[in-house]
């Protein structure tokens, strides 16, 4: 058992080290794998904020992942075809700038989460799981049946979006960008978890009646946590669109919600770096086992079962003892 802090640093260095090694040995495919894992990690960190800290078991985070992706895809498609998105008393054009498109994705994610959260947070337990799942599927079917943006075929982004000062077509440069975003997200989540808000959020998961009694509204805590969670996962979806230069309704499918949940449970629920090691392990499984057997998901399922049954804190929980006090 090591301290969680050192394990967290080791995970961070591990992902960066892998990408550096892959880059300098010329394995650009591995660099892209590391990028994929990093983006999944961000999606997982988003879910972990609601699920791990807030105790909100959302089975609909694909909605945010997809919204983030479609924000980028829609903006890019309008920029490509030189048609404005909206042409009324103001004109809104598409964009191929990552900064603007990712910003739009985060805002779209926040609004979507506000809507879904305001409606579904009135339920709890199994009902909450079902209603978030239903919302996710609603977005999925909507995307499929929306011909303006490709319907089932999705949207292709023919030219990689741009970021000032970088050549985003170079896999390692794009990795560095995504990894920087991951690092910022980790630091922000760490800060929020140590804030008074974090103190109240982690308390409401365990003892909501106590939180009410000290004058803090559980619904408001949960809704804010859900919105932050949706924003982070939408950001991941935006980057995923830029990685693949393609978005499709599959981003909204419940499989994606399930996968994001797997990152969290595999890595360690309510552990800061749990989703990072969880996503990395998932991508490694997918790559190594997926190449040998098309039934790799069965093995992943077995691994998950073992983790859920024997290692409650996931990979992080079985390697590190929990930092006891929340302060200091």
């Amino acid at each position, binding site marked *: 058992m090591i301290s969680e802090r050192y394990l967290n640093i080791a995970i961070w260095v591990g992902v960066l080290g892998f990408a550096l090694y892959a880059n300098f040995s010329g394995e650009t495919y591995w660099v892209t794998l590391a990028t994929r894992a990093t983006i999944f990690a961000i999606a997982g960190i988003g879910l972990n904020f609601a699920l791990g800290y807030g105790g909100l078991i959302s089975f609909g985070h694909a909605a945010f992942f997809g919204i983030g992706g479609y924000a980028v895809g829609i903006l890019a498609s309008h920029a490509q075809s030189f048609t404005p998105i909206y042409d009324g008393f103001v004109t809104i054009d598409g964009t191929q700038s990552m900064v603007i498109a990712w910003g739009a994705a985060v805002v779209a994610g926040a609004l979507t989460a506000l809507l879904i959260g305001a409606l579904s947070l009135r339920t709890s337990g199994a009902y909450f799981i079902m209603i978030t799942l239903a919302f996710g599927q609603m977005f999925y079917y909507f995307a499929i049946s929306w011909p303006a943006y490709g319907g089932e075929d999705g949207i292709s982004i023919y030219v990689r979006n741009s970021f000032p000062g970088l050549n985003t077509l170079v896999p390692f440069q794009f990795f560095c960008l995504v990894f920087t975003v991951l690092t910022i997200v980790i630091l922000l989540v760490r*800060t929020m978890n140590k804030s008074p808000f*974090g103190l109240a959020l982690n308390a409401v998961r365990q*003892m909501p009646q106590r939180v009410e*009694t*000290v*004058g*803090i509204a559980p619904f408001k805590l949960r809704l804010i946590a859900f919105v932050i969670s949706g924003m982070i996962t939408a950001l991941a979806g935006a980057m995923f669109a830029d990685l693949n230069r393609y978005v499709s309704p599959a981003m909204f499918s419940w499989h994606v919600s399930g996968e994001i949940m797997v990152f969290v449970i595999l890595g360690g629920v309510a552990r800061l770096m749990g989703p990072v090691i969880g996503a990395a392990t998932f991508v490694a499984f997918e790559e190594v086992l997926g190449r040998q057997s098309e039934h790799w998901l069965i093995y992943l399922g077995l691994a998950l079962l073992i983790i859920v049954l024997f290692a409650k804190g996931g990979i992080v929980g079985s390697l590190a003892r929990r930092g006891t006090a929340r*302060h200091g």
Partner: protein
Amino acid sequence: MDKAVLSIRNLSKSFGAIEASKDISLDVRAGEIHALIGPNGAGKSTLIQQIAGGLRPDAGQIVFQGEPVTHLTTVQRARLGLGRSFQVSAVVPDYTVLENIMLALHGRNRTAFRLFSNAFRDTALLAEARRHAERAELGDRLSIPAAALAHGERRLLELAMALSLKPKIFLLDEPMAGLGNDGTQRVTTLLAQLKTEAPILLVEHDMDAVFALADRISVLVYGRVIATGTRDEIRANADVRRAYLGDDEDAL
């Protein structure tokens, strides 16, 4: 005379066929400890719960500091200054004593929605948290998780969290249950000081403590207040003696 900080007027509440509160009226006045006693299942916790906001009464009014609060949520009532402790300890199990108290302080100060400051940075607030812990005899248990506390210590943490809210009234549901003689003594001393800060509605089974502390006592039997009065009046009351006859007459 002293005016009522809290007035309960004609409160009724049923769970199916069980009438847990039947037309209850009582006052808690400034500076007093008003004890609520009665056999198990009489409806004491149900009454506390309706005052604090967790249960909605079927009929009747709750007036706090002159304002009706019956329609307000638990959170709104807490913010107005109703400081409640639970019969079954409801502290945050993973949190240490200090963390639990800091949670209460951030709730009271309305700083709980700050996202980017550190909850434990404010040294004045930390010092205040320590003072509340010390008052509840938990000064040397600050870094122990609530789940690892002894049962009695968890009761004290309940009390410390209520103290931290600096409420305008305390609603204490059996704060001494399971404390042992020594603990009961110390909490009795603490409550006697506390009532000078805010009046207390005290639910308690320990009759020695009740008769040592209470300025007035209400007796609840099967959801109905059968008597309210001073210690002597309650001791002398025939109905009360009858209600307790099977139980423990010597206690009165």
